[in-house]
């Protein structure tokens, strides 16, 4: 039993090393060195219409040279915990290659020192949910090395709601109703025609 436990533990340990050495990055290993803010109008934001102003930059309280490896910045729109409840397809996973928290790309730019701002129009395909904004700093290999987000570690502050488009159109509504009515009416038509034919053949 003990021997099995040791074997299991060593396999787990080995796989952890394997992960870090072979490119599987864990979120908890990233340093939070970036400062990110997201501002927007105070009403419910609409996908496809409203804009969010995102700013990001290195947190100056970190020593100089912290950002020497940063080559690219990737800013993404992420689901808040409340929008992940009972939705396994939005689950947070420490392994970044499996993580599904941040599914929408806001911008991807080369890193430059100093604060950057972007006014982003919310994409039309963003679903109705509660969100926050996170920025990842990538190194030359495209691997995440640091991050920043506009909310706290528990992802409970500065969240904002976005309302999706319905995807419905008046023409679709009308077509649905018309075709439905046609189906039912044609059935009745068939019945009447059948009855008439049966009566005629009896005469």
């Amino acid at each position, binding site marked *: 039993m003990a021997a099995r436990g040791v074997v299991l533990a060593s396999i787990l340990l080995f796989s952890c090393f394997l992960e870090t050495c072979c490119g599987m990055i864990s979120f908890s290993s990233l340093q939070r060195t970036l400062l990110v803010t997201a501002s927007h109008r105070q009403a419910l934001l609409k996908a496809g219409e409203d804009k969010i102003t995102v700013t990001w930059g290195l947190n100056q309280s970190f020593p100089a040279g912290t950002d020497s490896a940063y080559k690219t910045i990737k800013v993404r729109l992420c689901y808040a915990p409340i929008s992940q*409840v*009972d*939705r*396994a*397809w939005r689950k947070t996973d420490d392994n970044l290659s*499996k993580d599904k928290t941040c599914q929408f790309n806001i911008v991807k730019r080369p890193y430059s020192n100093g604060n950057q701002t972007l006014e982003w129009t919310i994409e*039309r*395909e963003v*679903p*109705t*949910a509660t969100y926050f904004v996170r920025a990842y700093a990538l190194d030359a290999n495209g691997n995440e090395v640091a991050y920043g987000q506009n909310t706290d570690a528990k992802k409970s502050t500065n969240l904002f709601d976005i309302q*999706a*488009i*319905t*995807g*419905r*159109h008046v023409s*679709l*509504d009308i*077509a*649905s*109703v018309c*075709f*439905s*009515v*046609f*189906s*039912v009416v*044609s*059935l009745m038509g*068939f019945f009447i025609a*059948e009855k008439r034919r*049966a009566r005629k*053949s*009896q005469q």
Partner: protein
Amino acid sequence: MEVQSGVPESHPPKFALPVDSEQKATEFRLFSVAAPHMRAFHLAWVSFFSCFVSTFAAPPLLPIIRDNLNLTSTDIGNAGIAAVSGAVFARLAMGTACDLFGPRLASASLILLTTPAVYFTSIASSPVSFLLVRFFTGFSIATFVSTQFWMSSMFSSPVVGTANGVAGGWGNLGGGATQLIMPLVFDLIHHTGADKFTAWRIAFFIPALFQTLSAFAVLIFGQDLPDGNFRGLQKSGDKPKDKFSLVFYHGIRNYRGWILALTYGYCFGVELAVDNIIAEYFYDRFNLKLHTAGLIAASFGLANVISRPGGGILSDVVAKRFGMRGRLWTLWVVQTLGGVFCIILGRVGSLSASIVVMIAFSLFVQAACGLTFGVVPFVSRRSLGVISGMTGGGGNVGALLTQLIFFKGSKYSKETGISLMGVMIICCTLPVWLIYYPQWGGMFCGPSNKHTEEDYYMSEWNSVEKEKGLHHASLKFADNSRNEKGGGVKAAAMPTDGVQMA
């Protein structure tokens, strides 16, 4: 076209296929569209196929729909359950409707009355409306019962398993084809510039239109029986009108119908449950694209093109040598093996292994469906529709229960749910051991020498009804079913080819 039997004919019509004393075809020729037998076959399977396409049109597009309608896993699970629960009672009602009004009217009516639900899916806007449209669309797969009834009315016992198996299998194919069709249609529409959240809505018009057109075809080109339609035959006195209460009573008091309802819940029911979850399972677990997940999920349903017919054919082949006992044994073995593969499917972790096991699982579970309907036509002659309806309804109950217990919300991971479902399949297939026909035997007991096929089928009629001569169709059927004894025993006196002289 319809045969007008308003005026009694001096000799019965000639058929393209050889027929027995009930005018049922004794051969099954797949590539013929000869009226009435093969034409009925093609109309039946195509209309049933369209219903399956509609009922399972949502699952492959769920990754889009769940974001548009803000669905949770629980909402999705509930909608999946709703999709199969409507048909539980619809199938039973359909069975009775077939006994009373004939499969042509019964199926076409149901199809046309459920098409509005498919059209309204395009305007769903919340979890509740999504659940409602899936619920009402699901009623349409009660056409399974009319398909089987129609085939059992058109084809004789040597080929009834095959006819039922192919019609049922090619109809069920819709559940697989839709996993390919819907993502494709969605992609096409999305590429023309529509938003994702609009494209999926437009895509639903395709299955809806297909369904409408197939119902029209059934009404225009189909006929209930080799001799004509129910209404025409009833008016001319060639087919006595039966009473609903008696038909229903004789159906539900036959314990074999209940056992088959349970076991069918764990081959067909499982197939429906898997149709509902498999695309999402592959999409989420293996991080595939919508397309790819749809393709893999489709192969599960597409196996129906050979597996269910294979089950039906196997049933008929085994019956030639071993009769009804062979049919029962084969059913039990094949379905149990399906359960075993299901358990394995939940345990394998690699994509390629999952696909291989899933295909094996689909072949066995769908063959079991075909084998079940090799047994069903013999349970009752008077209440064939009710028995078909009970069995079919039992299939949907199985789908409902399985999704409720294992695939609702986030209690079990999908993999665990699948394995547990496999265990349940094995347990719920055991009751096949209890099916016993006095004239043919059961799995472990031989036939009783004192009982004949006539005794069994005549027990459904009382002496008053026999005096009125209502039982003649059952008598003919009893004679034609004698080959279920096995060992190559044929129907006693009737010639089996060409024109039947009255």
